[in-house]
């Protein structure tokens, strides 16, 4: 019996079964402290259609799914190598093509055109708003965090702090805070952009300069704490931030340059285009950065800090720089959000936000700009879809359960992300085979 249970094929079935049971509970009905078992029990026993064929209960559906997945995985373990080979042969030509710069650029232009005409195709107001607030802005944020996590290899769990700083700075200079505006007059939010970027960057440097000397895991905790602290301040400094009541009304941005007049109003589409412009600018800037001296120095530090120092690279300086760039991107995103929504509340700036952005980066592929953009678009679209047309039993906060599970799954099965950066992929592969000195940076275990 024991021997039977230990056979890989049997163990695999139980593992997949356990994963499916977890999925069942995740997608099942909610419970409460009054009925703590209702959620669990209902997850298995609620009636459910069997792929539209007939009606049954949930556990039957999931057991069926488990068997199907088990069969596929087993088949793969036997035939996988052959299948992989034939897939590789088929995809060899397109893959080689995407390595070419011209093809990549062309693909980028096509995607940009799609992004530009999208608001004319999708006219549902929910989705138009989501495209700005939840997708375009999140693409921006993911690109910013990618500089910190992907390029410099620093785990920042308090990214929300800089986003909040950007948003509150906007409220400040436009006169929406209880405290008098920065320059005594209420400015157009456009002027908030450089100010917010500067202040976010400055706070990035102020937080980073002392803490980036720390080992990577300590840094993660310190940034986590910092994110919480910013929320505590926003919540409690009534005289400055408006406290939990939120800010006053933040005006919409407008352009008034000679013949050029435009006021961004309540409709989301103009914001969408504004954000897309900045997404493209950041995209180009960051990919130039990646392939510049600075990008190579980050790679060097990430891979072997001791060796990097031995060729004259000052790790602290480059880490602070990555932190500052990430912070200013988040600060900028804060401006967009603040000027687009009428007012902002501390409750929007929580740990959930930081982790959400981290998931986008990890899912897409740390260090891969194309990856994190794809990751942000995919995940945010799915989460907006779930919000817009929730399946039975889904509560909006359930999203976080899925995101958490996704982080674990990515780390177990594909730590490099769906569209990995080639450098990162090699690095992780080398680290797993015991080469390189990546971990020293994180744990401080220098020899």
């Amino acid at each position, binding site marked *: 019996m024991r021997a039977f249970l230990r056979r890989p094929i049997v163990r695999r079935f139980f593992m997949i079964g356990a994963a499916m049971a977890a999925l069942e*509970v*995740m997608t099942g009905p*909610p*419970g*409460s*402290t*009054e009925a*703590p078992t209702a*959620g*669990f029990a209902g997850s298995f026993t609620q009636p459910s259609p069997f792929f539209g064929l007939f009606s049954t209960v949930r556990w039957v559906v999931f057991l069926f799914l488990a068997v199907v997945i088990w069969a596929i995985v087993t088949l793969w373990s036997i035939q996988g190598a052959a299948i992989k080979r034939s897939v590789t042969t088929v995809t060899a030509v397109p893959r080689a093509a995407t390595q070419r710069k011209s093809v990549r650029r062309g693909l980028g232009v096509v995607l940009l055109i799609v992004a530009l005409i999208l608001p004319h195709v999708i006219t549902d107001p929910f989705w138009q708003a989501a495209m700005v607030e939840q997708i375009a802005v999140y693409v921006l944020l993911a690109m910013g965090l990618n500089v910190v996590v992907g390029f410099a*290899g620093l*785990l920042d769990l308090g990214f929300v702090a800089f986003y909040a700083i950007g948003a509150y700075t906007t409220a400040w200079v436009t006169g929406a805070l209880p405290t008098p505006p920065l320059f005594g007059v209420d400015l157009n939010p456009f002027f908030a952009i450089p100010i917010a970027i500067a202040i976010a960057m400055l706070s990035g440097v102020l937080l980073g300069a*002392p*803490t980036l*000397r*720390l080992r*990577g*895991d*300590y840094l*993660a*905790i*310190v940034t*986590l*704490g*910092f994110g*919480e*602290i910013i929320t*505590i*301040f926003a*919540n*409690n400094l009534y005289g400055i931030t408006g406290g939990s009541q939120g800010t006053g009304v933040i005006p919409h941005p407008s352009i008034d340059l000679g013949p050029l007049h435009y006021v961004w109003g309540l409709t989301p589409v103009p914001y969408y285009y504004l954000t897309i412009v900045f997404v493209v600018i950041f995209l180009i800037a960051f990919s130039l950065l990646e392939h510049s001296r600075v990008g190579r120095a980050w790679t060097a530090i990430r891979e072997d800090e001791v060796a990097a120092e031995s060729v004259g690279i000052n790790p602290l300086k480059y880490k602070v720089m990555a932190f500052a760039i990430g912070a200013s991107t988040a600060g900028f995103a804060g401006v967009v959000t603040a000027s687009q929504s009428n007012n902002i509340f501390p409750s929007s700036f929580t*740990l959930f936000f930081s*982790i959400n952005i*981290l998931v986008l980066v*990890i899912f897409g592929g740390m260090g891969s700009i194309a990856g994190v953009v794809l990751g942000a678009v995919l995940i945010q679209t799915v989460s907006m879809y779930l919000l817009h047309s929730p399946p039975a039993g889904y*509560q909006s*906060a*359930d999203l*976080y*359960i899925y*995101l*958490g*599970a996704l*982080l*674990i799954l*990515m*780390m*177990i099965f594909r*730590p490099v992300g769906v569209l990995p950066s080639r450098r990162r992929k090699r*690095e*992780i592969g080398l*680290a*797993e*085979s*015991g080469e390189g000195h*990546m*971990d020293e940076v*994180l*744990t401080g*275990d220098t020899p």
Partner: protein
Amino acid sequence: MGAFGHYLASHFTTLQKEFWYLLVGGVANGFLYGMVAVGYTLVYGVLRLINFAHSEIFMSGGFAGYFLMKALVGTTVPSGLSSIGLIGLGIVAGGLVGALVATALERVAYRPLRKRNAPKLAYLISAIGASYFMFNLAGKEFGRYSVSVPQPYINHAVFHVFGAPVLMYDIIIFVSGLIMLFALDRIVATTKLGRSVRAVAQDAETASLMGVNIDRTIALTFVIGGALGGAAGFLFGLGTGVVYTMGFTPALKAFTAAVLGGIGNLRGAMIGGLLLGIVESLSVVFVQAAYIDVVAFGILVAVLLFRPTGILGERLGRAA
């Protein structure tokens, strides 16, 4: 100077008046932090990484205790021996569930990565994912609102120190905290398991050559840390109530305590916990209650910057 001097003087007067009262509360909190902190320190010792999901072990212990108390206490008002029995049961339940959750965590979020020799960054992210998954799942299953735990005892002042009342709740924490931390200290210092833990902490490779089963030792480390964390969750819940996000702040503070004492150092974690609890409690005199968490965070940053090895230094290998 005058105004600031006055500020200080008036606050010191308050501190004098409230000192013993705050101290009692601080020590009680300190024991809780210490119990959670040893979990961080133990796992750090054997895996060289911070278990970001430890907060959820604490939370699960809290819920286990809540449901047990709800079933056993209900609307009755227990006292005397039945109180002691109920609290014992609650601690056992919290500890069991904490250990169970810790084991599952190690199996699902850590072991696959260890088998693959994944970079440490992967562990951190996986642990963050696990933490996020667990507390949000708890929110879904048990509701996303705070509930108070049916009290298995009458929370009266048992005696006074210099006029400050020491409540039943404080005594429960002192006694159970002392017993558990003492037991842990002895386990690590004298048993075979403790020796394996220390051996792995010092040098995993050599330990495995000497016949220590690394997988088992790591799993057991999670069990011990989880049991203490879960029990602490129950005790915390008794006083503060339970909610799915209850783990976050106490765990951040317990981590601070672990670093304060020297991460990897068992006794350091206990002392760090007490110290943090007391300092935090006394700081109420100087800052508004809303900013108490900021004080703990400030201590964390200060320790990391100025004395990253903590008060007692990092050395689980030689702890105890």
